[in-house]
């Protein structure tokens, strides 16, 4: 496996830290809501807290694209994010119509993020098949 750039190492550390923060926010939020410990308007704030580190991961990816000096590796990542966006948005569009016509149930919006990350993997496969290197 090729040696990873400093930008890649920094990106990984950011993702690790943000994932830990995500757990630190999510677990108390779930516990608090389950046991009805969170009063009134504070519920909105606590409910949004686990979303913030996920948004941070998107920011970390943007930062990585800015910091990565290897233009080929950067291009691989850009192609992956395009794949991820196209895949998740296409899926959401199809699912939205199916849901609108009552053919499938409603789904939580954050599944889009899961699909987006799955799309990153698809982009990596496409990169490997067409350019010989997967990327991230």
């Amino acid at each position, binding site marked *: 496996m*090729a*040696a990873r750039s400093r930008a890649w190492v920094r990106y990984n550390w950011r993702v690790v830290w943000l994932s830990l923060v995500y757990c630190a926010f999510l677990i108390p939020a779930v516990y608090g809501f389950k046991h009805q410990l969170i009063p009134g308007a504070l519920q909105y704030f606590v409910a949004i807290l686990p979303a913030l580190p996920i948004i941070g991961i998107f920011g970390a990816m943007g930062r990585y694209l800015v910091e990565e*000096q*290897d*233009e080929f590796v950067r291009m691989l990542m850009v192609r992956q994010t395009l794949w991820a966006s196209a895949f998740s948005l296409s899926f959401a569009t199809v699912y939205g119509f199916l849901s609108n016509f009552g053919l499938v149930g409603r789904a939580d919006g954050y599944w889009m993020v899961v699909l987006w990350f799955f799309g990153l993997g698809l982009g990596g496969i496409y990169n490997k098949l067409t*350019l*010989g*290197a997967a990327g991230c």
Partner: protein
Amino acid sequence: MENRLRLLRAERNWSQQDLGQRLEVSRQSVNAIETGKYDPSLPLAFRIAELFDLPIEEIFVSPSTRSSKAI
């Protein structure tokens, strides 16, 4: 883009990793350029040319030159 990078590298007994380190890019970048799957930017093409002390056109084959020769 067709190029002579693999040949020039082999003449110097460099691995793709060696060349990547000299150019400050990954081994997979070198491989993608050598196999013509990726065309380097102008700054990277200049870095390659300077490393081998050759003009860019002696390393990379212009697509227009190549097609006119084919005609």
